[in-house]
């Protein structure tokens, strides 16, 4: 445990520029994870109601007309 926290401290937090890098990268990653996760929950609550759920029917139909 101590080994791990020492490793984390020395590689990421000790020097200012690695610390800053860690902050930016983890902010980006957390935001991606949060947005993807919440979108997935939202879409499953609203399954079948949104345009992307019914879009296939109409895109398909338009292509059939062209043929």
């Amino acid at each position, binding site marked *: 445990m101590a080994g791990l926290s020492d490793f984390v401290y020395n590689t990421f937090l000790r020097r200012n520029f690695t610390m800053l890098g860690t902050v930016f990268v983890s902010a980006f990653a957390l935001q991606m994870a*949060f*947005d993807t996760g*919440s*979108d997935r929950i*939202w879409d499953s*609550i*609203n399954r*079948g*109601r*949104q*345009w992307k*759920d*019914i*879009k296939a029917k*109409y*895109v398909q139909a*338009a292509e059939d007309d062209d043929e």
Partner: protein
Amino acid sequence: MLARSALRSARSAGAVARNAASKTTSRSSSTSSSTAEGAASSWKTNALPAGATAFAIGTVAWYYHLYGRNVDAMTPAEEGLHPTSYPWAHEKWHKTFDHQALRRGFQVYREVCASCHSLARIPYRSLVGTIMTVDEAKALAEENEYDTEPNDEGETEKRPGKLSDYLPSPYKNDEAARAANNGALPPDLSLMVKARHGGCNYIFSLLTGYPEEPPAGAVVPEGLNFNPYFPGTGIAMARVLYDDLVEYEDETPATTSQMAKDVTEFLNWAAEPEMDERKKMGWKVLAVTSVLTALSVWVKRYKWAPIKTRKLVYTPPIQTKSPITSKLPKPDQKS
């Protein structure tokens, strides 16, 4: 006046109590108790405060009766019947619009309402990705002609519509609209759901609320139609929705209430097209801020822990001025 008499009563109540007390002491040797007398005097003690309370409540009730009630400037008929509140799925905090219903509602608008009502704040581009595909929206836009930019001579020509154009209005201007509708202006429907009390419930009730016959005794002026939900009950728009008026492409049975519900939900979308995104964003904001709140509560407790758990000890200074106590011998005298 009331205050003074209350004061006096308090004083006399005190006297009564004193008398009772002296009587009990004087009879303390005898075995008889004075409970009967005590009960009688307590009734007298309470009569005045009880009366004052009753008077105060009565005054407030009378004042409320005179001035506190709702004063309606309009009769119930002028106010219009309050619409039933329906359990709209899309009004729930966690639900988006049902976009299949929006598509049906737009069909109803185009085939029924568009001959009288404009929807002037909706451009074709906003239909893309919510109600129809790009190709469908483009084809729809091209069905109508719009003015081009004026050329060097100031002449405009006609060109087919583009996605950036707004839905065409049925009349050139409000005067033309009035002239075609017996003097009544069919209002623009873009923001209608936001513009009326009751929102969706009102519009649904209005569209489905035309009775077969006006009720006995109702006065319906010439050229108006009876609708209890419309303020004043006489509306220039006749009933427009009848069963199977449109044929839905998704084969939903086109009953009057189905069409009314679809077009109402569509008009709700027209009035707040941002709703889906707004609700999702709202939930995200709640999620993030609740984590931040929990964090800040924790940080506060962490920072305050030493202050909250410290122990304060007060050692009083030794009194040296007091002449008597300092001369007295003490069991364990501190220096």
